[in-house]
């Protein structure tokens, strides 16, 4: 026995563990992977499930999908480092009950090798693993469009959530990107990427309407991204999603923005309280969040009820 010779403080310990594990946050992508990781490949997936459990009896499904094409520049990397904090933010102040988070990535089915990646709904740090396995495509077609409609099709048809089945409560979907969707969900791409046989193309407006039966859908446009602030992009998404289009001037605030949006939607916090929470927590993001959430500020909070 002895006297705790290896005693250390919490900060040194965290640093030691990180140095020892030493993985890049983007290990899979940086390892040169050019195909979706098996855990994130939508091909042949029947359902991604957000289920209630003994430990999480009142699950709240939250999906965050971000554009990983070239026009987003460094944005996906920043998101990959920021998003792991999302769960903590949601739970710390009770913005959401039993949040279950799924991450995914959107590319371009007309030219990318990895046009769609979708993780699983997780309520612990396994979601970090999914994040680390996302391939950062960096390509994109240069035609100001990405396959958002393909991602929306998958989420509309291949997600089952107990919140909806058991409690008639929608989930939350955050699309983070800077470009337009293609005008139609194309059967050939659906077959190739997901494996479904689709009789005919689905107009993007129809798939959005179908998706909104399951999710409260938000589009976050980081103004740091390629087409940030682009009028056509903003107008098109506003046409599809109304006031649920949020312009974000500081990517560092992405988690706070998502967390507070969910908190507002769940009626667990109002905007002023939420901004106070952020300030109390020492977050410098309050200003950016306030700007992004301005469209939501004056509307009734009961946005999630069916």
């Amino acid at each position, binding site marked *: 026995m002895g006297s705790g010779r290896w005693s250390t403080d*919490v900060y040194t310990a965290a640093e*030691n563990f990180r140095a020892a*594990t030493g993985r890049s946050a983007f290990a899979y992508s940086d390892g040169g992977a050019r195909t979706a990781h098996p855990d994130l490949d939508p091909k042949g997936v029947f359902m991604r499930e957000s289920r209630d459990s003994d430990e999480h009896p009142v699950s709240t499904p939250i999906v965050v999908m971000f554009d990983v094409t070239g026009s987003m520049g460094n944005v996906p990397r920043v998101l990959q480092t920021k998003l792991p904090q999302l769960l903590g933010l949601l739970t710390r102040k009770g913005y959401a009950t039993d949040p279950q988070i799924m991450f995914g990535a959107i590319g371009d089915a007309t030219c990318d090798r990895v046009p769609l990646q979708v993780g699983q709904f997780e309520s612990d740090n396994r979601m970090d693993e999914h994040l680390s396995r996302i391939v950062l495509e960096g390509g994109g077609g240069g035609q100001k469009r990405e396959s958002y409609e393909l991602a929306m099709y998958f989420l509309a048809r291949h997600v089952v959530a107990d919140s909806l089945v058991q409690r008639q409560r929608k989930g939350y979907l955050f699309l983070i990107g800077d470009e337009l969707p293609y005008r139609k969900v194309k059967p050939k791409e659906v077959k190739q990427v997901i494996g479904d046989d689709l009789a005919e193309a689905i107009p993007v407006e129809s798939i959005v309407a179908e998706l909104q039966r399951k999710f409260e859908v938000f589009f976050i446009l980081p103004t740091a991204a390629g087409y940030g602030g682009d009028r056509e992009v903003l107008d098109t998404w506003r046409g599809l999603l109304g006031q649920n289009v949020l312009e974000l001037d500081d990517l560092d605030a992405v988690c706070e923005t998502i967390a507070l949006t969910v908190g507002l939607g769940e009626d667990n916090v109002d905007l002023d309280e939420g901004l106070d929470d952020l300030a109390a927590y020492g977050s410098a993001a309050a200003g950016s969040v306030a700007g992004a959430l301005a469209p939501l500020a004056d509307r009734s909070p009961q946005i999630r009820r069916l």
Partner: protein
Amino acid sequence: MREHVAVVDLGYGDAGKGTVVDALCGNQRVRAVLRFNGGAQAAHNVVADGRHHTFSQFGAGTLRGVPTHLTRFMVVDPLALSAEAAALGNPYHLLTVDGDALLATPWHRAANRRKERSNRHGSCGMGIGETMAYALTHADAPRVADVLSPARLRRRLERVQEAYGFTDAPVDDVVEAFVAFGRAVRIVHESHTMRLLAEGPCVFEGAQGVLLDEWRGWHPHTTWSTTTFDNVAELCPSFRRLGVVRTYTTRHGAGPFVTENPLLDLPETHNGHGEWQGAFRTGHFDAVAHRYAVEVAGGVDELAVTHLDAPVRETGLKICTSYRVDGEIHDRIVPGPHRDLAHQERLTAWLDRARPAELHRPADWATEIGGLLGAPVTLESYGPRAIDKRFVPAGVHRPAGIRLPTYCLV
């Protein structure tokens, strides 16, 4: 070695379990070293290939590449673990941790030190006892598997922080460090223990010593840990029980120590005055107390005797075979009913009045100690390195059956 072996210290700790485990791992192919009690306060010194390491949570076979498994009986301290791992070159590939094991937090540690300042007990200031005490009254005490669920971990850590009222370590920062711990180590189900035991011979490495046992030691100068073979018996159906003793008796910190003799010149390389434990005390070999340890441990199958080089250097060193208490001679400490702390406390008072009665100096220390404790000495140690050890072929010494403790016969 085809059987599993459990290595337990029959004294107050510091007998040399670390070097014994290291020697067992060097002598035979060992599947894994399993830790079954205590936590980060253990300090098992091993010198191998010119390298000295004080093992605390990693098993003492680590320098030989033998994996360590921390069983559910351990109190795991991620903060201390990170420092120990860094000193070893981060051999996380050699480590598995049972998800059910309790987690020691900075708040447990702080509470332990606060108590120790006001009322010296002789603990190590690592919060092991505090963690065990907290778990007894809180069903949601943080456990290792919680680091895989940050939300649950946060809830449970917040409860600990609230319970103790310390605010110096922010919960967020502890969550972050513990989650990082979860990424570095492999967290396994309880069945992992069974798998290791099925795959090959394992060594169970005990911490502290039987005379510090929470139920059998000199209450209240004990540890919050079962230091006998009891935990091993819960994990493993069959194993050989190896008791470790020094040629002289030592004690770190407060509590009865009948044969203590500060005049003995026995310099200690790796043990010194502990900030939280107090002085390192030495004395003659206490055969009376060690026989009590064998008895309450349910017997031992074999013995390892360490520091056999010491009697040569200190010619005043002797073996005590009886006490004088209140004018009477006693050669046995009679075990009381199990889990009777009032009895143990009376025993402590009785021992405080005891003085050595009969002291002698044997010609052959190993044989003499084996005879007094009723088990063959199968390992003799003359120094800290594995090459200082001598494995004694079984049968050289008088083999002894397992003596049932008297309280089992009643």
